[in-house]
């Protein structure tokens, strides 16, 4: 008989986390980490991570650490249990050091340059951030919701915030653009939220009754689902153009926020109506029969039984609609409705990439916030009896 020893079998490499770490390492090594321009609109010169100094070295160390943590179950089976936490810490380090590195690169490159010179974030730095996010995701999918998971997520946010505040990120050109546009920036953020919010609100006011009516009458269903489906296929610029005609006929302005809100309302209808309709129509007929048989009126049945059961799908539809209108609201700057799209169109006109980013990045952030917020709402509002499954 062979000697019996207690050895933990070799585990598998966490492929997702490894992919994140390798993405960051390869991105940083191969692609420009930052881009240096003598002024705002000339073509940029790629610069490597070497320009970030010790901060850049730190980023490489954290990315390598993430790779090691990803491979830990294979290399050091005894440490397998600590892998998720190690990955979370490495990801926090990657986020912080990447933010710090771009700031440091900006500070160093701008030290000897003119006031007009700009440094913007390059593809390599973006990939480092994406890689960090992938590592974070891989670690989260292994961890239960517990305090170490939350603590390390907070640590990552704090590291990025510190790097942004004290690490020289203020020297980056996107921040420079912000500084010169600060008053407009917040005005546009406000406009953007108003447009998207109004579109979503009208979409709900119109969409929910339409969905309920669709479950009651076939005719309403066929027309409603057909029409909202067709609307979705019309490109947003074309829809805004088409709206000019009926609005002019009604004596209303074809440009400004009115056509924008109408267009956003129409686009939000499809996800809201379709999901709510499916949610309501998938309620088990036996459940409806039991409710009616016990003496619930149509309204009581809808509010107490059908609506709560349709809620997970309905919220999912509202979430999709919210993300959609926040994105499309950028296009409505095209008809003079304002919003963050203004920066994007101005930036494209001026060939100023960083002005485009000043519009685009907050739009992405808003969409992510709406997405996260509505997911959290779904988790709270949906009954534990049907959570994590269909009705």
């Amino acid at each position, binding site marked *: 008989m062979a000697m019996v020893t207690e050895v933990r079998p070799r585990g598998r490499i966490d492929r997702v986390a490894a992919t994140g770490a390798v993405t960051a390492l390869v991105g940083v090594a191969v692609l420009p980490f930052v881009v240096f321009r003598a002024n705002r609109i000339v073509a940029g010169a790629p610069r490597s991570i070497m320009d970030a100094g010790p901060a850049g070295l730190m980023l490489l160390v954290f990315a390598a650490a993430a790779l090691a943590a990803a491979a830990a179950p294979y290399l050091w089976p005894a440490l397998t249990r600590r892998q998720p936490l190690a990955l979370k810490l490495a990801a926090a380090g990657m986020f912080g050091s990447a933010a710090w590195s771009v700031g440091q690169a900006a500070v160093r490159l701008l030290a000897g340059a003119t006031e007009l010179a700009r440094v913007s974030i390059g593809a390599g730095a973006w990939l480092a951030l994406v890689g960090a996010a992938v590592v974070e995701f891989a670690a989260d999918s292994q961890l239960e919701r517990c305090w170490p998971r939350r603590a390390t997520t907070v640590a990552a946010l704090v590291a990025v915030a510190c790097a942004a505040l004290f690490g020289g990120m203020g020297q980056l050109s996107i921040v420079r653009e912000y500084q010169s546009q600060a008053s407009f920036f917040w005005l546009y953020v406000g406009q953007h939220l108003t447009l998207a919010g109004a579109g979503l609100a009208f979409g709900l006011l119109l969409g929910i009754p339409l969905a309920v009516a669709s479950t009651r009458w076939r005719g309403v269903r066929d027309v409603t689902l057909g029409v909202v489906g067709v609307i979705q296929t019309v490109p947003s610029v074309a829809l805004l153009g088409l709206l000019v005609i009926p609005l002019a006929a009604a004596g209303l302005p074809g440009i400004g926020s009115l056509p924008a809100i109408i267009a956003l309302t129409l686009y939000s209808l499809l996800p809201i109506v379709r999901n709510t309709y499916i949610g309501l129509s998938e309620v*088990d007929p*036996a*459940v*409806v*029969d*039991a*409710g*009616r*048989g*016990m*003496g*619930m*009126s149509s309204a*009581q049945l809808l509010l107490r*039984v059908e609506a*709560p*059961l349709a809620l997970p799908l309905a919220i999912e539809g509202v979430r999709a609609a919210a993300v959609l209108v926040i994105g499309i609201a950028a296009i409505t700057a095209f008809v003079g409705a304002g919003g963050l799209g203004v920066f994007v169109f101005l930036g494209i006109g001026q060939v100023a990439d960083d002005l485009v980013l000043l519009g685009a990045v907050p739009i992405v952030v808003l969409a992510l916030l709406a997405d996260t917020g509505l997911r959290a709402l779904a988790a709270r509002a*949906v*009954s*534990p*009896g*049907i959570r994590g*499954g269909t*009705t």
Partner: protein
Amino acid sequence: MIRLEQVTKRYGDAVAVDGLTFEVPEGEVCVLIGPSGCGKTTTLRMINRLIEPTSGHIFVGDRDVMSVTPEELRRGLGYAIQSVGLFPHLSVAENIMTVPKLLKWDRKRMEERVEELLTLVGLPPEEYAGKYPRQLSGGEGQRVGVARALAADPPVLLMDEPFGAVDPLNRERLQTEFARIQRSLRKTVIFVTHDVDEAIRLADHIALMRDGRLQQYATPEEILDHPANKFVHDFMGADRALKRLGRVRVSEAMRTAVPSLSGGRSPQELSTRAACADTRFVYLTDADGRLEGWFDCHAVEIGTTAEDAVTLVDWRDDAVRPDTSLKEALSRMLGHGYRSIAVTDLTGHLLGDVAFSAVEAAMSDSDERMAAAHDAREGAASDEGSVPE
């Protein structure tokens, strides 16, 4: 009391229910039975107006169901269906509170009612009140469905194959429990089923339907002994004697004084055969009197070791309850190959046993009883064996 007068339901040219007239007395169980498509479920659903009759009148108590709104009517009629239809997003307690909530009971009264009902249907409230329907087994779900139908203490219960979707063993248990509950609550019940044995077991009156028409409305005994026509005879099946056993409870044929030994059962102790004086089998129980098995005195006599003469059993599977039907008891005996079967209460305490011979006796008894009853009614000799067409 529920009375149907010339109730008809037409869908276009098709007649689902045709001129149905019968009356269910207060506190009785009326089972509607017939082949699928015979109109039994339509009839049930017309009573609480989930389907509106084309013509005719339905009275619940002395009130025409058309004289009140459907919602008000339904809140006064308990309703349980085969697919149960528990609200998946609500806890068991909230499900049971459905009708009380519609009737705006106060919170405390509802909570007390939930506790009372869960206990009644055999689900410990502290364990089940907070569960969600998806955490329940099929049988537990059906019990909650019945509890929900009983919640506002309606005088009338409408049940559409309430035990149709569970396995046979669980169905037998649910029937036993339903019979027990009905004995204490005395509701007026309309019960739809396609299971003849279930109908015979639970019904005070059976309404047998075919193609929307009533074929016979009578007690189970009457319908078994004197089917109104060939269809009724064929539908009820040939094994009438066996079916009749479904009406007799184990407690009616049970021997209560059975030899038993409790506590320690070391082979030495058993082989003294203290209890084997005039019987072959001695039941073994634990110190609390729960059935654990039996001891075969003959096996010792013919030289087997005392240990081999002991058979250990699980009372849940190898014994019956006092309110089990004799038909079920017989089927268990045959299934296990026993000549008699132990009877325990719901927690396994040995109460007695039922012997095969006692089942035979009950069978001839019920024949005689039925013949006598028939004689009294008809004032003529029973023509058992021949089938009126």
